[in-house]
């Protein structure tokens, strides 16, 4: 996948990621901007899918590219950049979710209780379409390790081998987490072979 992308970049006359990282290593911030433009969607959607929080995803997007800038001198330009971005995004998203669950969620619950603004109140519920809310809940209910694998497989369309390399876990572990995640999502979204979520599975043309 990464190889294909670098080849297509070469065909389209774009500067290669490796050249941009090399330029970034010399302190060229314009190169960071180009890398951001090129990969921001990848990082944002991965962070959003794992955290389920758009604001957090925006913050993590910035944090990932700041780390790219900060640690540019440690990056091997001979290797594709995307696995590094996936790894960094996944790790930072995991950290955010753990910290949020441990520290912030209880505080948010107390604040909601004090202000009377319950998350399941009709006013809040109408803000988010019920079907999408169901999807978000289904993803959030997965254990964190399974969530990462599911997101990289279904959203980023990485192969099992690529996921294993990015997350530094055996291929068998990826497969078992994927199997568990698939079964859990099927159950929570009430998917079966003959019943498909028609309103959610439209394809953009």
């Amino acid at each position: 996948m990464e190889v294909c992308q670098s080849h297509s970049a070469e065909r389209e006359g774009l500067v290669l990621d490796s050249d941009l990282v090399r330029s970034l290593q010399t302190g060229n911030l314009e190169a960071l901007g180009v890398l951001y433009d090129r990969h921001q969607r990848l990082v944002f959607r991965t962070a959003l899918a794992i955290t389920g929080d758009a604001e957090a995803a925006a913050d993590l997007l910035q944090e990932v590219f700041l780390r790219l800038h900060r640690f540019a001198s440690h990056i091997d330009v001979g290797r594709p950049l995307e696995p590094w971005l996936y790894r960094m995004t996944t790790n930072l998203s995991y950290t955010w979710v753990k910290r949020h669950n441990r520290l912030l969620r209880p505080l948010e619950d107390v604040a909601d209780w004090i202000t009377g603004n319950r998350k399941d109140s009709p006013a809040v519920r109408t803000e988010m379409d019920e079907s999408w809310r169901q999807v978000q809940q289904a993803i959030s209910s997965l254990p964190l390790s399974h969530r990462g694998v599911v997101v990289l497989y279904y959203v980023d369309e990485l192969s099992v081998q690529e996921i294993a390399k990015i997350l530094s876990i055996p291929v068998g572990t990826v497969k078992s987490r994927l199997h568990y995640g698939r079964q859990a999502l099927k159950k929570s979204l009430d998917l079966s072979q003959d019943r498909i979520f028609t309103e959610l599975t439209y394809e953009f043309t």
Partner: protein
Amino acid sequence: MNGNIDLTLSRILKNWLSRHQPPVYGRARLLLAAADMPRKKRNFLALIPRTEFNDYPTYGSNANEWAPATFTWFFEQSFQTCIQARV
């Protein structure tokens, strides 16, 4: 067997995520923050001396292990600083 389900799940998740876009001023915000931030050129942690005797079991994860943890730490420090420990 999983082909249909995989395709369906992939579309559902992508459509859910497509409802959100990266922040509009993200690039400017990033470049501003990056300009203020020093880059990491050298790993200064590598300069901190490390123990040669790092094969001790890691005690201290349990509250009941404070005694072996203290004992291990004390002797490790003694070896590092070349001070003979007499207990």
